[in-house]
């Protein structure tokens, strides 16, 4: 069937062997591809109780039927595994060009299993797939890793068109905070996956594909893309996303006191507004086939943090200066550590220092103090003993000193928002398959739904997001994209004539698979804890209404 290549690569790192397997998309129409198929494969091949950093855990990278076809915002490759940070299933969205290149190389996805004896990287060039030694990449940051892999090619054009997904030094050291980076951009939701790459001794995946992507009906596909671009450019929410990146909800969140400061001790009251932040944006960057182009770059061409990273590295640690926060963000990306977790870790240390419970001799950072802040980012990124010996992630830092109840987050992942002021964000953070700070739900929910509608809004958002990511399309399209246009594209590419209900059904099935995986994995204790920390009246009622809607116990 068009849209899928019908092949997946199985990479066994223990035996250093690569197998090409057939994939019959007809058998997986319940989950389509991308995030859904990734979850289905992981759930069928991996025991949910597996140790995330153990040899038995697997990493599934999967593109959807629309990834890389040219469909609007169709750039997403889902990276599914059991996370070292949250101990749940997690599906990170690798955007930019990686997914499209993998499709062009002739594969729908990769399944990575086992553990290599020494550091390796995976090199995919169409049919030629090799597991190559990566000793020369050991300890290198993400930018240098990409550069070194590319410098192995003589032709500068070929080198530039090699797409690299890699971890930094933190991932090699298996820190739960480690994330994935592709071409200088953070892979969304990938905190906790970097360590899984590291545990398999897999430093990077490099891919270049030159194959044709075929369509069922090319002419109507071309027509539908033009319509899609027009729709996106005329949609108000997506236009503001395009102009203001994830900061399009910033003013709203500030006025609702949803943005915290000084490790959640009080709401953030900025002395300057969005204008002062946007003054640091020089250019935009877009993913493959995405007219929205929501990444912001500064004058030097380095990417500006998204809203959640900005909050965690900025106000949460007592900083306001966008230039300083951007600099810290850039250091995080180079080291391959999740900026939200890093910010929360440092802010926690600052708070603990204020509470005077830190041992002598340890790092004693103070809110808003620059030098120790950057020192800590370097120490975390390089996995220095003084800091990693103290704790490896935010929750164990708080547990270590006996203040576990002060940790704000779900299942070990920090949610950098004051959830008390926003029931939609709170319910989504707690009930999502992996804890996520998707602030875009705020825009999806039309900003202020009635309290009784919250469970339905959250379910609708989660289903749409999962369905889009299974299609291989960026979840931001749920804010204003038209599902019928996507369905038309799906028909033009694959020949499948679906309606909206069936597409959303894919989202529902995906969430069900992920939910069951997490149930079997156990260890959901903290999810219950957080609901007790959320001081929203009647929150328990919302939670049970949500579960009733889902039909889960």
């Amino acid at each position, binding site marked *: 069937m068009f849209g899928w290549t019908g092949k997946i690569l199985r990479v066994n790192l223990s035996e250093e062997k690569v197998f090409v397997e057939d994939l019959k998309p007809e058998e997986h129409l319940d989950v389509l591809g991308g995030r859904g198929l990734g979850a289905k494969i992981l759930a069928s091949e991996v025991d949910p109780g597996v140790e995330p950093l153990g040899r038995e855990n697997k990493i599934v990278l999967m593109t959807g039927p629309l990834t*890389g076809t040219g469909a609007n915002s169709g750039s997403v490759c889902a990276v599914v595994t059991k996370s070292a940070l949250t101990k749940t299933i997690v599906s990170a969205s690798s955007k930019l060009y990686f997914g499209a290149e993998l499709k062009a190389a002739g594969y729908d996805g990769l399944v990575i299993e086992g553990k290599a004896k020494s550091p390796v990287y995976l090199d995919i060039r169409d049919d030629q797939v090799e597991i190559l030694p990566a000793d020369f990449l050991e300890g290198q940051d993400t930018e240098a890793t990409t550069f070194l892999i590319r410098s192995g090619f003589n032709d500068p054009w070929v080198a530039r068109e090699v797409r690299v997904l890699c971890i930094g030094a933190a991932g090699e050291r298996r820190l739960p905070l480690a994330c994935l980076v592709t071409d200088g951009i953070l892979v969304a939701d990938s905190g906790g996956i970097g360590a899984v790459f590291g545990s398999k001794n897999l430093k990077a995946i490099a891919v270049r594909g030159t194959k044709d992507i075929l369509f069922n009906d090319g002419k109507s596909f071309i027509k539908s893309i033009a319509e899609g671009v027009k729709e996106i450019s005329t949609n108000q929410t997506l236009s503001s996303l395009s102009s203001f990146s994830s900061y399009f909800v910033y003013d709203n969140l500030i006025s609702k006191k949803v943005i915290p400061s000084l490790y959640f001790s009080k709401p953030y009251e900025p002395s300057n507004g969005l204008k002062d932040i946007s003054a640091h944006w020089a250019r935009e960057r877009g993913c493959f086939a995405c007219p929205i182009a929501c990444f912001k770059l500064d004058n030097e061409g380095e990417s500006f943090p998204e809203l959640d990273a900005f909050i965690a590295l900025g106000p949460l640690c007592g900083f306001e200066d966008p230039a300083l926060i951007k600099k810290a963000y850039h250091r995080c990306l180079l080291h391959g550590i999740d900026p939200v977790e890093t910010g929360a870790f440092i802010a926690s240390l600052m708070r603990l220092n204020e509470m005077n419970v830190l041992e002598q001799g340890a790092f004693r950072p103070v809110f808003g103090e620059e030098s120790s802040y950057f020192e800590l980012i370097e120490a975390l990124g390089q996995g220095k003993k003084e800091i990693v010996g103290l704790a490896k992630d935010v929750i164990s830092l708080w547990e270590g000193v006996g203040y576990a109840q002060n940790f704000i987050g779900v299942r070990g992942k920090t949610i950098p928002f004051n959830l008390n002021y926003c029931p939609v964000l709170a319910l989504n953070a707690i009930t999502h398959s992996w804890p996520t700070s998707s602030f875009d739900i705020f825009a999806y929910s039309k900003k202020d739904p009635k309290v009784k509608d919250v469970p339905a809004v959250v379910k609708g958002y989660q289903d749409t997001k999962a369905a889009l990511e299974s299609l291989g399309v960026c979840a931001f399209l749920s804010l204003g994209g038209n599902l019928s246009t996507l369905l038309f594209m799906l028909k033009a590419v694959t020949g499948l004539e679906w309606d909206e209900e069936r597409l959303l059904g894919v989202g529902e099935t995906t969430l069900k698979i992920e939910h069951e995986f997490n149930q079997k994995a156990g260890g959901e204790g903290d999810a219950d804890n957080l609901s007790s920390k959320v001081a929203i009246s009647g929150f328990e009622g919302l939670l049970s209404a949500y579960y009733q809607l889902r039909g889960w116990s």
Partner: protein
Amino acid sequence: MYKIKVDHTKCVGCRYCELACSLNHLTTALNPKKARIRVLKENNRFFPVISGPSTQAACNIKIDLVIGEKVYDFCDICRAACPFKDIFKDPNTGSAVQCDFCGIDAPGPACVKWCPTGALSIEEVPSYI
């Protein structure tokens, strides 16, 4: 005569031009590696490079091109149109691909028509032939 004008400050690297070009020329398939326009990323900026008409003589004005802090000695920018070091080749057949302008009337050059940011536009230039 007309030519395609490239404003690299507006390019965001979405590569719509590559898709438009390959879709327009292959009609039932997409393959950015067969496109006659490709986006080059250097120094965190994006430069759409068009494989234009071949020049008639060997390059005798080889000068280093400076963009930002980097000096280009690979002939990267010119190479697409260079008859001696042509670089945009069909990955299957190895034959060089070249911009045929896809006509000036609608649908116009597909890349210009599809560019969502306005980095590509059409410009009329005097013809000396």
